[in-house]
């Protein structure tokens, strides 16, 4: 069997998720032997239009980028959205809380109307084309990336957790962030990070996006127990979850 041809593309993002692939360090040498990486602009000079698996990092914010995504989709057998920006829109969706004209004026002042500064509300990749698999997180967990690629190479469907961060946090025996008076999004956010932030003494701010059916009622009960308001929760949900997920 010939090796699957893999191409990696980036759109509006910080490119930190690609970096997590590089951060596999020694393990990446093994992974590279299993596939044929035909395009990866950040790491290689080679380019190709012929690939089986396309990995897309970043959000879509301009018409010309939308065209590029359609083209990539038409060439790829499997399309993976890599990281929060591609999978849910991530932090880039904060922009969607504002009027686009006003956003441009805020940053560019009197030059705001120049055509190359055009921007539209941030979209996740699956708002434009069909996405086969999503690797969540800001940034992604590179162990999850390696697991997904391995599963695809074996012809299996990679498992994506659909339970909240609290499950992994309890398993780590962390003291609940709510006990510290913090509004933690653990109850409604998709796990898979190993509860990284609460384990480092910080509230979950939702970078992996919501679980498929977030238990909003349970979150409400917890808030009531700790004398916090829905407003607190909404304020924190805006960071990575603007204009998506459950409405309170």
């Amino acid at each position, binding site marked *: 069997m010939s090796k699957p041809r893999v191409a990696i593309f980036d759109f509006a993002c910080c490119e930190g998720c690609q970096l997590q692939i590089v951060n596999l360090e020694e393990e990446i040498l093994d992974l590279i032997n299993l596939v044929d990486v035909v395009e990866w602009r950040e790491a290689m000079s080679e380019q190709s239009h012929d690939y089986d698996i396309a990995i897309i990092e970043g959000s879509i914010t301009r018409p010309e980028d939308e065209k590029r995504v359609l083209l990539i989709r038409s060439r790829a057998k499997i399309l993976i959205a890599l990281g929060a920006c591609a999978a849910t829109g991530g932090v880039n969706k904060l922009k969607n809380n504002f009027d686009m004209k006003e956003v*441009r004026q805020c940053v560019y002042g009197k030059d705001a109307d120049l055509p190359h500064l055009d921007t539209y509300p941030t979209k996740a990749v699956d708002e434009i084309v069909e996405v086969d698999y999503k690797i969540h997180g800001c940034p992604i967990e590179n162990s999850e990336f390696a697991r997904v690629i391995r599963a695809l190479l074996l012809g299996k469907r990679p498992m994506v957790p659909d339970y909240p961060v609290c499950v992994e946090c309890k398993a780590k025996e962390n003291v609940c962030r709510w006990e510290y008076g913090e509004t933690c999004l653990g109850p409604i956010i998709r796990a898979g990070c190993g509860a990284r932030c609460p384990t480092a003494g910080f509230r979950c701010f939702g970078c992996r996006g919501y679980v498929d059916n977030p238990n909003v009622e349970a979150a409400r009960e917890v808030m009531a127990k700790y004398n916090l308001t829905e407003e607190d929760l909404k304020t924190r949900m805006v960071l990575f979850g603007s204009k998506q997920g459950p409405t309170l």
Partner: protein
Amino acid sequence: MSKNISINVHHITRVEGHGNIVVNVKNGTIEQCQWQVPEAPRFFEAMVRGRRFDDIQTIVSRICGICSISHSFAAIKAVEDALGLEITEQADKLRLLLHYSEIMQSHTLHVGYLVSPDLFGEKSVVPLVSKAPEIVKKIIKIHRVANQWSELLAGRITHPITVIPGGFSMIPSEQQLKDLKKQLEEIVPDLAAVCEAVLSVADKFPAFERETEYISLKQDNPPLYALFHGDITSTDCNGDGPVPVREWERVANEYVTPQSTAKWTRWHRDAFAVGALARFNNNAELLSPLAKKVADMFGLKKGNCNPFMNSVAQLAECAFVVENAIQTIDALLSKGLKQEKVKVSPRAGRGSGCVEAPRGILFHTYEFNKNGECVAANICIPTNQNHANIQKDFEKFVPEFMHLGEDGLRHGMEMLVRAYDPCISCSTHMLNVTFVK
């Protein structure tokens, strides 16, 4: 010599972000020579408005995946400045240690993975794995150690979790610091071997010079090679006192030129450079012994104006951060680590923060209302400050190296852009630059 040259590099590879190079030479006359940045702008300064002071770092760290720790620190320092917060000596030393880890991981990535393929005549680091396996393994090892170093202190390699206004949400144990020190001591020989390997191909760096103004931090009290604290200085200052960080806007002087639709920066001349070579040119005498040795190996001396030598200055800085980190760990351990409680209340105010990101000086300013909600932000990124200088370099480089022909010239110009270690995602958090000559 070729009379006609047409270069159109759409999305230069092996750099962070998207940049284009456009050159047109007709009958030996340069008609067009442009450095363009088509990266999608992301509007961070607009997006942070309305967010709380303790969410700012979490948001703006996402400006850049490679220098997320620097963005976190510039933001946290600005928030602390606005809120009037002092941090403890222990927290400050731990932050310095974390900052060094990013310098190490970013420089290793740049020199080891992105620049070295040019020096060894390859298109990426992948073929180097079989061509020079021992050196590649050493580079990967140094990169891994640097990343583990970041993860220990930040809770994650990229986008730090633990850095909060007032201090840390979590600190490492003394044993973990001792283990880190041992790891750092172990990579010194690996680092020396990588320097030797780069030296063996150093003749591939083009002999190109252009007199340039270099801007960086300078730290006097106590004197230290400035990466984390200090005031702003320049090789053109000529004895003028350094500029306090709060006044950074009068150093960056963002402006619109008649030739360009976007802002450039300038201070004493029409462009300036920031980054490892700028820091070296301002502070070389403060480098550690091993770092000075690295600079000497390559004949790098203060006043160097060859932009390609930025990679060599980065290698010297790698040696510096390892040596100084070991001393910092010793200083922390001699006093013993204490869990420190952080309590912060919001107040209205405006504050600025600055650090040397791996690719140059980085400024953040925020203004908060009495509830601690952000009402305005201004961020100025190193790559932004280098864009105009890259353009000025191009204008001198193209006529000097036109004799190399189209392929040679294109390759040289790509190497020149890479030498600046640009972080284009960063720079287009606000700007989308088109240089039109």
